[in-house]
């Protein structure tokens, strides 16, 4: 019997595998395809204060071992979300983390209060790392002071756990992680997508309507692993690993590198049950090796000798 449950900031997830923001919308589309009770949890598509139409199409394109997306945070806004989508999510037999993004520090505070008032939310994840918007998003996450301001504003507006989702587009992600930890983040999740671009040579035009987009999928896994490892050594709060996880092995690599939990996104587009299969794979791995609790693997990476 393997204990797969992980506890992050006072919230127990049944297993360490969560559906990543933006890859499962508000859960409805997946409801015919997967058993939510077997997920560790679900992170909603980003919600903003006002409705957003998003970026012009095309919005996704396949790349070598990954994909680019430039959705531009299309969403119905917090008011519609509360009425139309939250009742469904609240009834799901899994832990739901609500992801929010403000264009300003004040918007983060207002959104945090509104999400708190929904009732039944387990935690909120602050998207301070979207590469596809002109205001907010990555502009917060790429500067330690701005990131801390956004997190601090949300922190003061809610008692729910606050998870800061970080961008890889920084010189030192550990510095941003320390800044948001000091501002009151209960956990950090990383990485968001890397800025990428695809060119249609024949038409001499960018493939994406938004010109650039966010790169995700197995292509970014090594980048994410390095950043998770670096961050986990720099902060005391739990780290949630994200980036190209497509198998139980991938997930376990993140956990060993220091992630207390992981999120799976792009792999869900290939196989809607990816999260569940990964969780089962982690269980099998632990059983085979006589590991009684997955928590004991967190940060168990053996690194020999000092690094130059």
């Amino acid at each position, binding site marked *: 019997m393997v204990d797969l449950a992980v506890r992050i900031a006072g919230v127990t997830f049944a297993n360490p595998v969560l559906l990543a923001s933006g890859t499962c919308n508000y859960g409805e589309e997946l409801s015919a395809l997967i058993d939510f009770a077997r997920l560790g949890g679900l992170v909603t598509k980003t919600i903003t204060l006002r409705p957003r139409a998003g970026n012009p199409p095309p919005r996704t394109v396949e790349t070598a071992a990954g994909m680019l997306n430039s959705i531009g945070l299309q969403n*119905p806004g917090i008011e519609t979300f509360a009425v139309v989508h939250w009742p469904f999510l609240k009834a799901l037999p899994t832990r739901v983390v609500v992801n929010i993004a403000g264009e300003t520090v004040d918007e983060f505070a207002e959104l945090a209060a509104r999400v708190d008032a929904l009732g039944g939310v387990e935690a909120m994840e602050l998207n301070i790392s979207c590469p596809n918007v002109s205001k907010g998003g990555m502009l917060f996450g790429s500067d330690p002071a701005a990131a801390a301001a956004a997190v601090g504003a949300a922190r003061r507006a809610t008692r729910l756990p606050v998870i800061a989702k970080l961008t890889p587009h920084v010189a030192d992600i550990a510095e941003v992680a320390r800044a948001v930890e000091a501002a009151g983040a209960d956990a950090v999740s990383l990485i968001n997508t890397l800025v990428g671009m695809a060119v249609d040579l024949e038409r001499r035009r960018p493939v994406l309507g938004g010109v650039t987009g966010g790169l995700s999928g197995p292509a970014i896994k090594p980048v994410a692993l390095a950043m998770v490892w670096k961050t986990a050594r720099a902060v005391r709060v739990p780290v949630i690993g994200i980036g190209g996880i497509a198998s139980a092995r991938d997930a376990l690599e993140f956990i060993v590198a220091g992630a207390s939990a992981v999120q799976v996104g792009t792999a869900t587009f290939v196989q809607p049950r990816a999260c569940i299969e990964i969780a089962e794979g982690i269980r099998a791995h632990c059983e085979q090796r006589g590991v009684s609790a997955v928590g004991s693997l967190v940060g168990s990476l053996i690194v020999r000798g000092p690094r130059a």
Partner: protein
Amino acid sequence: MIARGKRAWGGGARECGRSWLAVALVACWGLLAVRCTPAPVYRDRLPGAREERSRRPAVSARPVGGAAAREAGTACGEGVAGSGPASGAAGAGAAPGEAARAYQTGLASYYGEPGEPTASGAVMRPDSFTAAHRELPFGTIIRVTNLENGRWVDVEVNDRGPFAEGRIVDLSRAAADRLGMLEVGSAQVRIEIVSAAE
């Protein structure tokens, strides 16, 4: 389409092209709703969408916690921390068809100086989510719900207590903060077992 994609990334570079075709196809399918629907009209608002959803069978039992705990949280009416007491309707009942799995209800308080040893041998850390309980085994994870405002927190039992008459659980400072009971110092709570100790 989905079946083909199942083994994607499992077979190394040779299969990349084929599996990523599947990614693109499924991704397109997944984002179809977003792409084909003129904003801000949402599919869910179209006639019939909601009705169909409500007819679906009830979801299966929660892996940890339980619908009862979540249901109790729904009455949490306090928007901003410290904005005053919320309605007392929280904890009124379990979700339809699911019995509340309350282990205990009663008065909670909070305690702890940093660095003090606990009965389990662990050092007291006020910023971690722990609790003292008189009989639950160390390592038990319990969900403590503040019945006065619907807020909850999962804590690990790592100490013995409280020994004051009429109290059932003593919480770390972080846990008490989450429940919004720092100022008052105590609150009526419900305890549910999330996971038993090994």
